[in-house]
């Protein structure tokens, strides 16, 4: 355990973000540095807060399903599935088992492409761009498969309250099997490149350590928690969709390295091994998928809308997103179309706190690597806070557009005058 003896803070305070090439999404870090070493770290998220919950409480449940799906570009299915499961528990709608299996297959396919993108981004933060290109090249295969299954590469809009909107036909099962074989071969290559490469080990071993005791206290979720030795995986602990019928176990780094250190390298190990696990889950789901079973418990949307308006109660819908547990708390009151309360807990919400102990004690060079190692999923914003002197002004997209048009007009005037 790296003990950090904090001397008199003689360092200087430096800010990383909100716009910084290391973060693909805006989050601001204020760091007290002493030379290269980080003494104290503090972060301010929310530059990308779009008030999704506020919008959700002004839409009916059918609209909220597709709004929830667009909370995050990478884990769309997660939010749609969690919200639908919450509403199904309130309105007592039980989807058919075939729908459960299709949901599980799509969710696991999403985990594969999300983990691959994360591996690429982590490699880019390490300055290892070839691994970034390789990961994204390999990821294209599952994106094309998902595009064939659901009609779109990112937002699948397959999950609906009461089941799924599209079936998986036997030919599509054959396509799935073909791309799973592709991933069986590339899995060996990914393991050798991401886990056996000397330069990655040099950079990631003992970087951004989250000790098991601290991990227990700060309640992280997903691979970040499992890499620090906490056996927490919603698919195992909480029986839902088709996961209850499969025997899966949480992946911990000691399966590959034989020890648990809770550093960035262990997080890479957990995520790469989870790729193998997902491939196994999908194969098992296709084999055990029940033949019959209607796709939607209530096919007619009008009837569904009426039933949801009459529903009353509160429930929690959960799913193990690629980054960790996603939980939607929904409360409906009879007679109101819009949910009375809707709280979305994305996986990074719980992992934010873990940044502080990870960053302190490491070097500046490790900041992008550590920040990316919990696979943060922050999201984008449409307004800019501009600081002029001490007066802060709020500019929206239209103001920015107006400013740029005015400047263009001024330049054209100067050119024509000149």
């Amino acid at each position: 355990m790296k003990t950090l003896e904090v001397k008199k803070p003689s360092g200087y305070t430096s800010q990383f973000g909100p716009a910084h090439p290391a973060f693909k999404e805006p989050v601001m870090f204020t760091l007290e540095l002493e030379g290269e070493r980080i003494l104290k770290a503090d972060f301010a998220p929310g530059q990308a807060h779009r008030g999704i919950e506020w919008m959700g409480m002004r839409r009916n449940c059918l609209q909220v399903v597709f709004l929830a799906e667009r909370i995050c570009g990478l884990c769309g299915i997660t939010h749609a599935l969690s919200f639908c499961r919450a509403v199904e528990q309130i309105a007592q709608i039980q989807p058919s088992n075939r729908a459960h299996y299709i949901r599980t297959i799509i969710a696991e396919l999403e985990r594969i492409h999300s983990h691959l993108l994360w591996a690429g981004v982590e490699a880019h933060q390490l300055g290892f761009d070839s691994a970034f290109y390789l990961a994204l090249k390999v990821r294209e295969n599952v994106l094309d498969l998902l595009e064939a299954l659901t009609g779109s590469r990112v937002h699948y809009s397959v999950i609906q309250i009461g089941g799924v909107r599209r079936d998986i036909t036997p030919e599509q099962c054959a396509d799935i099997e073909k791309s799973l074989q592709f991933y069986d071969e590339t899995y060996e290559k990914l393991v050798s490149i991401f886990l056996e490469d000397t330069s990655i080990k040099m950079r990631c071993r003992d970087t951004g350590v989250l000790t098991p005791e601290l991990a227990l206290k700060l309640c992280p979720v997903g691979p970040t928690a499992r890499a620090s030795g906490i056996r927490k995986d919603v698919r195992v602990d909480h029986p839902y969709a088709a996961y209850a019928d499969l025997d899966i176990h949480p992946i911990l780094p000691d399966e590959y390295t034989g020890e648990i250190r809770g550093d960035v390298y262990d997080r890479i190990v957990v995520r790469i091994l989870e790729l193998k696990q997902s491939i196994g889950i999908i194969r098992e789901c296709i084999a055990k998928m029940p033949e019959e079973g209607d796709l939607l418990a209530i096919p007619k949307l009008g009837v569904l809308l009426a039933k949801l308006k009459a529903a009353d109660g509160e429930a929690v819908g959960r799913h193990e997103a690629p980054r960790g547990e996603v939980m939607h708390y929904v409360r409906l009151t009879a007679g109101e179309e819009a949910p009375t309360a809707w709280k979305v807990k994305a996986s990074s919400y719980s992992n934010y706190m873990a940044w502080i102990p990870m960053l302190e004690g490491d070097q500046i060079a490790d900041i992008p690597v550590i920040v990316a190692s919990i696979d943060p999923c922050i999201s984008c914003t449409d307004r800019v806070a501009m600081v002029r002197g001490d007066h802060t002004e709020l500019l929206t997209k239209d103001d920015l557009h107006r400013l740029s048009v005015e400047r263009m007009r001024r330049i054209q005037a100067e050119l024509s005058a000149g």
Partner: protein
Amino acid sequence: MNILTPQELADVMKEAAGDGFQSARCTEWAEGVKGLTSKQVWVNLSRESLRPAIQRLIDIHYPHVAVIAFADTGEQVDLIYHLYIYYGIPHEEVLITLTVSLDKTDLKIPTITDLIPGALTSEREKQEMLGIEVVGIPDGRRLFLPEDFPEGVYPWRKDESGIPSDMIKELWATGREGLPTCATCEAPPLAPASQGEPS
């Protein structure tokens, strides 16, 4: 570690909450071919008995705080603490939900970050989004809202201290009536600033 059934857990919560205890119920939900059920315990209790209940849970199994949810029910604000215990044991996890109803005149609640530090993010968010004062919070700064967000406006509140209608700028409505000609770029006035109810 002997695993208590949801009913036993409800009784433990009842005894830990003492006179602050209001009600408790257990719910189940089964999915999949095998039909294994997931277990949830919903407990309503008062503000004073929140910390003893959580302390009692810590003795059983160190809980994982998922999030503190909220609900604005007219003259009261419910704070809903979601905690998991028995995670790590396949199919045994129990979700314990402690609901505390605070009336809007006295929005104070003791912090639980000294028991479980992971709850800080949630408590800071409740403070800025609902106007709740968390007594003893170690770091009460704003988390998600920007520094220049007006004071006293709490986005999740549905009463007068919620988001005023002049702050709402429906982007989907912007520039819909007359099509904006790019020369002047003056987007025509907005649709009347309704609360955004779906038409």
